[in-house]
């Protein structure tokens, strides 16, 4: 057992650090945790990485992945987090991409993978419905075969950033008589198809991050079905397992703790920096200690994956603890800014620009970010669902 990087790994770290320094777009600095950016801003770094061949490090090499080891991927995410880089969104690279190269047809691979890698095609996830949240398998959207098309009807919700989407991957019921988890299919839909309407949902932080997506008699060619009809649940579960890696967000939270420390060094309490206040500094310590526990749990997971053992039982902790820590981080950041947590930057004239001059710059979105991050323990299988999964898969109860 040791924590040392090999000389090759150290050289790799230096290489990616230099690449990020020389190529990360200056205009995106400091935007890493914002939800209300333009399409071009969201895709800026993704497109640069696409050209370099680094946009999908976890993919197998033959589909355009990097072939990096798990330690290299760990270094990669650490280095990006150091500059708070705006990483490629998960919907293409981490979600539908792996489903397509694992279960899709050769035509689907050829058609879709290059666009995902390059950051040219924006994907949306059509899973949740008004009546199917944590109980995803109770979804009702139907796809009825009509010649060489499916006719799709239903309503999806929480469709993240679908206002920018070119394509979507949707779970639809193809066999209404089957039990809830059977009879579901995984279908790729061009978002420009007639009958699709995307309506914004405004969230408590004032952003337009998610949408309702209505599908009315949407005609989709049958070749857009991924894998076999009625086996979509298998692919959805596979996708969730993929979604989990990196969900701990360790590198980004470490950067967040640094930022919190710097805010707490600027803020004062009775004339003393907040960072030296016993009550507050101990909260930071506790957070950092819990983050260290998460970091080493993730490292153990990576090590076991690298040995081909697959993620061990400890990997299931990553979603729960990772999101709890992300939430506590934003909670403490809001506490740290004190009175200036209250001004609503997005509600003022000029809408969300950063130079409003109310309070220190770091206070502008502290409350919004705290509000927004409540989503993390709800999405991707709520943390209660995660506990049900651990109960079943690990405790065997």
């Amino acid at each position, binding site marked *: 057992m040791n924590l040392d990087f090999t000389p090759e790994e150290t050289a790799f770290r230096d290489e990616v650090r230099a690449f990020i320094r020389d190529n990360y777009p200056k205009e995106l600095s400091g935007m890493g945790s914002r939800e209300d950016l333009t399409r071009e801003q969201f895709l800026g770094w993704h497109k640069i990485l696409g050209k370099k061949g680094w946009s999908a490090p976890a993919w197998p090499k033959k589909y355009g992945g990097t072939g990096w080891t798990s330690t290299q991927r760990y270094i990669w995410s650490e280095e990006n987090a150091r500059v708070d880089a705006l990483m490629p969104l998960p919907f293409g690279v981490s979600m539908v991409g792996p489903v397509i190269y694992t279960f899709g047809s050769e035509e689907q691979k050829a058609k879709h993978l290059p666009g995902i890698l390059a950051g040219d095609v924006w994907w949306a996830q059509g899973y949740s419905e008004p009546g199917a949240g944590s109980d995803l398998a109770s979804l009702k959207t139907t796809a009825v075969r009509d010649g060489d098309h499916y006719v799709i009807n239903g309503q999806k919700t929480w469709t993240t950033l679908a206002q920018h989407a070119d394509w979507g991957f949707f779970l639809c019921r193809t066999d209404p008589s089957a039990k809830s988890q059977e009879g579901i299919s995984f279908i790729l839909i061009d978002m420009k198809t007639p009958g699709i309407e995307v309506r914004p949902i405004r969230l408590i932080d004032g952003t337009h991050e998610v949408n309702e997506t209505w599908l009315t008699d949407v005609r989709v060619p049958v070749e857009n079905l991924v894998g076999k009809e009625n086996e979509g649940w298998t692919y959805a579960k596979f996708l969730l397992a993929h979604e989990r890696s990196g969900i701990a967000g360790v590198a980004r939270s470490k950067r967040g703790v640094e930022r919190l420390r710097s805010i707490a060094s600027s803020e004062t309490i009775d004339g003393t920096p907040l960072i030296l206040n016993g009550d507050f500094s101990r909260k930071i*310590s506790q957070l*950092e*200690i819990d983050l*260290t526990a998460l970091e080493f749990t993730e490292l153990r997971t990576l090590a076991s994956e690298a040995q081909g053992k697959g993620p061990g*039982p*400890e990997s299931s902790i990553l979603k729960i603890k990772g999101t709890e820590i992300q939430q506590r981080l934003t909670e403490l950041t809001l506490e740290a800014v004190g009175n200036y947590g209250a001004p609503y930057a997005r509600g003022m004239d000029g809408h969300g620009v950063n130079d409003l001059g109310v309070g220190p710059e770091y206070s502008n979105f502290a409350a919004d970010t705290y509000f927004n991050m409540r989503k993390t323990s709800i999405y991707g299988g709520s943390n209660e669902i995660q506990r049900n999964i*651990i109960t079943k898969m690990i405790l065997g109860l």
Partner: protein
Amino acid sequence: MDFNFTEEQTMIRDSLARLIKDQYDFDTRRKVIASSEGWRPKMWAQFAELGLLAAPFSEEDGGLGGGPIDAMVVMEEFGKGLVIEPYLQSVVIGGGFLKRGSDGQKAEHLAPMIAGERVFAFAYAEPKGRYNLADLETTATKDGAGWKISGHKAVVVGAPWASHLIVTARTAGGRRDTKGIGVFIVAKDAKGVTTRDYPTVDGRRASEVHFDNVSVGTDAAIGDAGNGLPLIERVTDEAIAALCAEACGAMKVAQTMTVEYSRTRKQFGTAIGKFQVLQHKMVDMFMEAEQSVSMTYMASLKLDEDDVTRKKAASAAKVRIGQAGRFVGQNAIQIHGGMGMTDELAIGHYFKRLTIIDSEFGNVDHHLKRYTDLSATEVLVAAE
């Protein structure tokens, strides 16, 4: 980066696990604890034979060439079996000091310790010192060629079984000064050493040790008798990492025992493990135990880094394990219900051991403060 165990470490783990399974079952342990001796010197000899006492030492020092990870492996198995023998005190702490001693001290003490013939205990705590390693009223004063030691050491775990004590004492300065502290080897049968032996709530034995003008030679002092605190802190951090490993073993067993119990115990016509409120509690216990393992790896792997990194790592681990141990222990009792309160079930004994581990070498509050103070030092240094 590598999280694998070596072949030797795996062998140690397997053979120790087998020994504990065969000869350290719960009923045997209860009988041993209730006996007048309170431990099994024969078991200690078997540990020596298995190479456990030699495992963490370099070959030059008469060991098997291992290190802290080997001690971690042993201590985790000890935790699983609630083993009471003083591995932490004699091997990790005693050996930790001795391997940094002079060649003469190594020859005189380390070799017989590794052979299992000499057993060490660590007399550092004092009635009023709480967890501050520098808060010492025990004194060592120069006396001709040697030293005279006087004072009262509190709750010296394993002292009733020890042949020798490692004693911290003030050689100069005021009561809580960080300078002016020495570390001394004292034979327990030396003139002027008196002990009051007693059992501890978690099945071990300890002593109040009084030193009344105990004479020791110059060769009794380990390292710099005027500045021993850095060494004491280093060895104590190593002890913390090992103690965390023991806690991990105990937590894992307490957690799995509880899951097993919930599978068989029926109420309202169903196994209580079917109740979601208990399931989620047990998932939280599982997560606490797993994260404790991660923290123990972390602390054990950082023992040889710079002082601040090492101290923060040890304190971080002790905080997390203290909290996890309390959570796992308390909920294990709760889910066992009334049966968890009975002495005849093992679960209560795991709970008791986990409870006391938090108070050994500094509890959660102590280490959260230590970690915070070290971080503040970094902030101030960065600001200058």
